[in-house]
């Protein structure tokens, strides 16, 4: 009974902590300066969204992709081009940009889905580089100069001087992306994607088209990266080939690993930690990259599950401690196998039609 009370208290505590975090995040434009809201808030949210597209692929599909920034760039540059040069409505341009990123994502996914592990990583690295060099060389998309004055639609206001509207919009999009990906992970498609991650040979033996599932998983993550590209373009009012360079691809991977490559929420946590370091540490030292590398190394060594992994492990440990304190022997195995006490077998019917 005591254990139940403690577990409920812990669960309530966890939810309470989550509510506090969400409340603080929601109050950033009210409590913090315009600089913090714009520089840290907007950057963290757009970086978090592109990182979560990688986290989804990695955590649920077993595919660590470096091509997410390429898809980010496709959407961002097309949106900027259509709004600045062609005068399109911002929302329509964004929709076209995200659809274009999805189409490119399907192509990337179809090509890379036949590979796994390091080969998959290298193929997606090649996609990232091809996309970068394409946009760096094509004057239509501004080449290295990029496209400036790519302002967001009017309701989102000025993201530099008055970033509140943009911040809340990006926060809502982040929550929707998080909930959407979490929902997908529990559907038949999402579970099958996780099955492919765990054992593709078994999944093929269960009747699944492993390659198609991996391709569709990649295609599903593409619009998420695309949305991040559009939001980043709007919040910075510009985008260039430099926004999708190899350094940025690695930055996204770093943020995802810092937060936790297997937990969706880890993408935003990692993005926030990275952005804080990037914003404030650069002013203190010219060895920012070195210190960030040390932080990265410590996190990977201490907790391969990143910051969210540490928090999850701490919660699990606390729950076990509470359980072990009240129930003698709790937490130890020694449980007999399910067949130790033979049960009456239930006849299983066959007859599946061909």
């Amino acid at each position: 009974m005591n254990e139940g009370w403690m577990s409920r208290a812990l669960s309530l505590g966890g939810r309470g902590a989550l509510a506090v975090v969400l409340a603080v995040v929601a109050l950033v434009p009210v409590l913090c300066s315009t600089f913090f809201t714009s520089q840290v808030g907007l950057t963290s949210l757009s970086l978090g969204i592109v990182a979560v597209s990688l986290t989804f692929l990695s955590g649920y599909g077993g595919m660590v992709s470096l091509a997410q920034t390429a898809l980010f760039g496709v959407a961002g540059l097309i949106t900027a081009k259509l709004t600045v040069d062609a005068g399109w409505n911002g929302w329509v341009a964004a929709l076209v940009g995200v659809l274009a990123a999805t189409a490119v994502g399907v192509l990337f996914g179809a090509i890379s889905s036949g590979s796994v592990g390091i080969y998959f990583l290298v193929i997606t690295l090649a996609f990232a580089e091809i996309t970068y060099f394409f946009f760096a060389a094509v004057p239509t998309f501004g080449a290295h100069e990029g496209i400036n004055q790519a302002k967001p639609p009017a309701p989102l206001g000025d993201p530099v001087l008055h970033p509140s509207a943009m911040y809340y919009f990006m926060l809502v999009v982040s929550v929707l992306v998080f909930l959407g990906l979490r929902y997908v992970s529990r559907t038949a498609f999402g579970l099958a994607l996780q099955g492919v991650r765990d054992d593709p040979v078994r999944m093929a033996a269960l009747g699944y088209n492993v390659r198609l599932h991996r391709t569709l998983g990649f295609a599903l993550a593409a619009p998420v990266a695309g949305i991040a590209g559009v939001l980043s373009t709007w919040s910075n009012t510009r985008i260039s080939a430099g926004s999708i360079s190899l350094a940025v691809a690695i930055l996204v991977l770093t943020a995802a690993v810092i937060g936790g490559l297997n937990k969706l929420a880890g993408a935003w946590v990692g993005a926030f930690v990275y952005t804080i370091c990037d914003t404030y540490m650069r002013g203190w030292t010219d060895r920012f990259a070195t210190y960030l590398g040390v932080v990265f190394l410590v996190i990977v060594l201490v907790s391969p599950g990143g910051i969210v992994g540490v928090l999850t492990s701490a919660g699990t440990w606390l729950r076990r401690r509470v359980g072990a304190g009240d129930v003698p022997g709790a937490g130890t195995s020694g449980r007999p196998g399910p067949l130790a006490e033979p049960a009456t077998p239930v006849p299983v019917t066959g007859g599946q039609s061909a």
Partner: protein
Amino acid sequence: MSEHVLQARGLTRRFGGVVAVREVDLEIGQGERRAVLGPNGAGKSSLFNLLAGADTPTAGSIELFGTDVTALGARQRTRMGLSRTFQTSRLLGGLTVEDNLYLAAIGVSGGRFRLLRGSRDAEARKRAVRVAESVGMTDRLGEPAGELSHGEQRQLEIGLALVAEPRLLLLDEPAAGLSRAERQLLTALLLGLERDVTLLIIEHDMDVALTVAERVTMMYEGAVIVEGTPAEIRSNQRVHDLYLGRAHV
């Protein structure tokens, strides 16, 4: 149309200079219970991989339910009604027992790409729970498959094969590593299978294999050396010399 569920003709698999499966002919009738026996390295699992579509034969052909499936992969054969277990458990370790069984259920019945949950999901989940009960895993449904004991993993392997409601079931050493009580339950489970399920089993445990099987195919160095009833196999001198030993006489 052929009366055989499975027909293999001249099936051969070479790995460089090694011939793992050597011109094997095999005919399995509807509802038959067939055991494939042989010492380690006899080519039993290689033969299973060829039959299940996990590997491609160097020569020969395979007919499944009267259709030539030699060029088809594991996925297509599974959808035709073939289910298999693996010699070493291959489970979806990050997913729960129930999710493993659920994915196995929809792998053949459709809905693999569904992004919305509906009544068909509930049906597949019910089937998963029913099969979990039949393999004695009802109380482990919420457990990640990767955290199961060896015996439980073997049971889930069989559950994954059964939940697809197969017409042909290939079991690769299902009793390996099971306790005596678990082997007894496994034997009872296999004997309880209805006759519209054809069974092909590789098993080193003679008690399980010869209790379940009506016919036995004996392999040695990749080739079939003898085929017959369990009694004929028991009394075959060559089988004794190569595999069974005097204790089984």
